[in-house]
């Protein structure tokens, strides 16, 4: 390696495969620049992912935006090779964490200099570059972020036109807002060309890999799915990281669910707490509208009693849990998969719920509408477990296909269908554990019944008889077996000659898929089963029969999925090995590779 300037010059070029971290303080308007950069890569056809690592704070605390670019299309988290150091408070720490051989773009006005000789540094004279900008005050502060956009664009090979196009998208097509920003980008770009010499190996070059794709967050995709699932009533209470799910719902609703004359076919209630939020959704589900709530861990805790009620009184409702790190307030702005066990059995006494586990924006959309179908078919609360990483960050995906199965409303008897009866709300007429229900407003005089969370017989009459309780629970268990046959099955990806099988769910797939790719190149093929729902479907049960070692990877401390799988599949329980880890950050491929290595024969 040839040493040059204050950095290290690598002899090879790294093209379209690295990670950038932009370090700023939150509330300084850096998100426009961050998303602009992300968008520019996307527009160049380079697979990307953007992750906002943000504090639980309004303004002033450090925030990091990670952008992954990948020639091969791997979009999991990767330790950054490029740092944009625009937060004086974290400057030294940020520099210290940078990978050897990395690059540091930094605000020269801080008066600090990176104290490492194994990285390349590009100081940016921010004040000088924005001196001519006509903007004043806060806006001038915001536009300062455009300087790093200009310099990094020049150094890694993004054109100003690309940046301008990306910003235009960011500002919703309003050229007037783009102008003062792109002006600074241009100044910075030109300055960089003249005043600093390229001495790092990182480049981007246009690829054709994002054509026709969408870039959106899981929360947006999920909300869109819910709208196409016919959701009509939502109750919610603000909580990170689920709030943006409801924001998206409230954006899509007026566009798609009005009668053309200014009247709405939906309503969203911001409730007084999460208990009421779910109560509202359950009330709507009981009265016959498709309904949902979206929340996160602390909200799930509060909703527990209502979930048990919904399970026992058999009321359809959909609950989105965008998981964050708990227990308690925990790390409200960090990601986790810690609510799997609690949601699966939420509520006191015996209760078990259908839990859908999307891993991508495509699945957020698909499960978004399927959840309502399942809830009404099964007459029960259905959870959709996403997480902060999937929910709030920007993911690439294929445009969602229009749902081709028609909306079915489950076993609801109209007045005519009920006829002269008999009607027993909780009688298992069809042997699938699902009774027939009637809705308020039904004009048939025998349609009415009293829904209750207390013990009841098949006619929904109050009952404390042991036999009634026992029979009711036998039926609820039958219903759960029916659910097993309806939920989305696991996916399985097989590599020839693999000696072990990985199991996971949700957003960890990206790190795992990349790690498998790397491992297979090193001669270690693996199989990968991705669980997409609980209870595990009938077909899932057979997936592990041929594997002696099954590594269960998940982002929590207790190995929750591993415990559930051992319980659900006692005959192969001893094959499951738990690899559970949680520090609030999305997994990286390197971490997965390292943890899997221990279980691979011949690994060193």
């Amino acid at each position, binding site marked *: 390696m040839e040493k040059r300037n204050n950095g290290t010059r690598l002899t090879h070029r790294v093209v379209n495969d690295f990670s950038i971290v932009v370090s700023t303080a939150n509330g300084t308007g850096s998100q426009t620049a961050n998303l602009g950069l992300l968008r520019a890569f996307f527009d160049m056809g380079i697979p990307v992912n953007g992750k906002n690592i943000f504090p639980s704070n309004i303004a002033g605390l450090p925030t990091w935006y990670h952008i992954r670019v990948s020639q091969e299309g791997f979009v999991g988290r990767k330790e950054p090779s490029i740092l944009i150091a625009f937060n004086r408070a974290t400057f030294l720490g940020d520099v210290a964490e940078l990978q050897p051989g990395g690059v540091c773009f930094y605000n020269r006005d801080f008066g600090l200099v990176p104290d490492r000789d194994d990285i390349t540094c590009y100081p940016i004279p921010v004040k000088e570059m924005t001196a001519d900008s006509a903007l004043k005050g806060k806006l001038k502060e915001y536009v300062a972020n455009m300087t790093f956009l200009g310099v990094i664009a020049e150094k890694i090979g993004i054109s100003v036109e690309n940046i301008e196009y990306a910003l235009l998208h960011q500002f919703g097509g309003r050229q007037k807002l783009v102008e003062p920003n792109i002006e600074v980008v241009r100044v910075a770009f030109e300055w960089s060309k003249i005043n600093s010499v390229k001495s790092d190996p990182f480049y981007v070059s246009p690829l054709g890999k994002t054509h026709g794709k*969408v870039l959106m967050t899981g929360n947006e995709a999920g909300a869109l799915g819910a709208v196409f699932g016919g959701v009509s009533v939502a109750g919610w209470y603000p909580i990170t990281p689920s709030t943006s799910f409801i924001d998206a719902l409230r954006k899509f609703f007026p566009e*798609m669910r009005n009668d053309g004359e200014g009247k709405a076919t939906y309503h969203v*209630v911001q409730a007084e707490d999460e208990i009421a939020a*779910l109560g509202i959704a359950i009330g*709507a589900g009981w009265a*016959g509208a498709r309904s949902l709530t979206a929340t996160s861990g602390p909200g799930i805790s509060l909703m527990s009693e209502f979930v048990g009620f919904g399970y026992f009184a058999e009321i359809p409702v959909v609950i989105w849990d965008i998981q964050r790190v708990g227990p308690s307030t925990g790390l409200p702005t960090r990601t986790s998969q810690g609510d799997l066990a609690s949601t699966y059995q939420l509520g006191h006494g015996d209760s078990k719920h259908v839990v859908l586990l999307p891993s991508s924006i495509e699945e957020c959309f698909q499960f978004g509408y399927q959840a309502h179908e399942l809830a009404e078919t099964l007459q029960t609360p259905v959870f959709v477990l996403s997480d902060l990483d999937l929910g709030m960050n920007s993911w690439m995906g294929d445009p969602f296909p229009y749902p081709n199965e028609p909306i079915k409303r489950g076993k609801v008897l109209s007045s005519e269908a009920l006829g002269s009866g008999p009607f027993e709300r909780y009688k298992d007429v069809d042997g699938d554990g699902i009774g027939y229900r009637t809705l*308020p*407003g039904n004009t048939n005089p025998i349609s009415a019944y009293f829904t209750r969370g207390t013990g009841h017989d098949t006619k929904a009459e109050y009952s404390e008889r042991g036999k009634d309780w026992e029979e009711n629970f036998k039926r609820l268990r039958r219903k759960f077996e029916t659910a097993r046959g309806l939920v989305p099955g696991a996916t399985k990806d097989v590599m020839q000659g693999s000696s072990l099988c990985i199991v996971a769910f949700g957003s960890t797939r990206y790190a795992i898929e990349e790690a498998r790719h790397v491992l297979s190149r090193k001669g270690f093929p693996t199989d990968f089963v991705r669980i997409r729902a609980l209870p595990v479907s009938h077909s899932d049960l057979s997936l592990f029969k041929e594997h002696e070692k099954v590594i269960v990877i998940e982002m929590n401390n207790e190995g929750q999925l591993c415990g559930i799988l051992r319980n659900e599949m006692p005959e192969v329980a001893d094959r499951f090995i738990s690899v559970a880890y949680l520090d609030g950050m999305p997994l990286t491929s390197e971490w997965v590779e390292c943890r899997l290595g221990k279980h691979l024969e011949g690994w060193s």
Partner: protein
Amino acid sequence: MKRGPGQANNIGLTRNEYTGSASTLCKGCGHNSISSQIIQVAYELSLKPEEIIKLSGIGCSSKSPAYFLGMSHGINALHGRMPAVATGALLANASLKAIGVSGDGDTGSIGLGNFKHLVRRNVRMVYVIENNGVYGLTKGQFSSTADEGQELKYAGDNPFPEMDLCLEALIAGCGFVARSFAGDVKQIRALLKAALSHRGTAVLDIISPCVAFNNQDISTKSFGYGRANQSSLHEIGYVPPMEEIILQDHEPGELEIVELHDGSQIQLRKLEAEYDASDRIEAVRRVQLSQEHDEFLTGLLYIDSTRPSLSEVAHLVETPLAELTADQLRPSKNDLDAALKRYM
């Protein structure tokens, strides 16, 4: 309007067809008397059972919806959470008339937040509080509406001030606030009828004695106390929509007439000449005054039928959301494509 119980009403139903299953509450419980009045009123107004939903929380009071209107759908929700369920149900189907029954523990303690937010959103429903100052099912603990300084054998002394649920409703912006007494069936019926015609949340705080735990004459929640001390602000008359409105002879200022949203009318024949039921500040003052003077003040304390209900504010379509067709529920492929295009 008077009919014998066996006689069919305007929609061909007898009073009997408005009853529910047999009450399991104590003999003589005030709540049973209120259930009877709900049955009577629904019968007299010829309400269609399928157009009514019954809702409740948890407690003695909340069991009672099983004992009236057996041909109407009902839901017995969680302790204190009926308002949330009602909010959702009435968004799903805004054409329904809802009768909620709660108690002083359900409304005044565990569900106080839900209650005040229901009122604040003005969800169109009748919200009956069967208020007896004690928790019955758990054997007689004080509730938040119990008299300050009261002594009960099991519960001991109550050192805390009484919470007035009418005041809570008034402060939360309720447009129909009434207090009554389970022993005054005439007043309850008139209030229930008016409440069913109200545009938003109508709160009826009905003192409904607990014969098991809190019915000593000294308690303000007892039958004895109520009979001896009830002081009505007015005599209440209700004239249903479409019925010819005949005003009886009255002195100037004696009769206050309130037009309700559905064309019906409340006629208040004043017993307290200066009281103006459309003045919220006066209502708050008068209720507080009644507390100061240990008065048992009943009647329609406050009425404002101008505030729109939640479903009006929501600009909902006429068709109940629960009855939308699959085509109305799922937007078109064009809508999906247009939405996705913005993310490309």
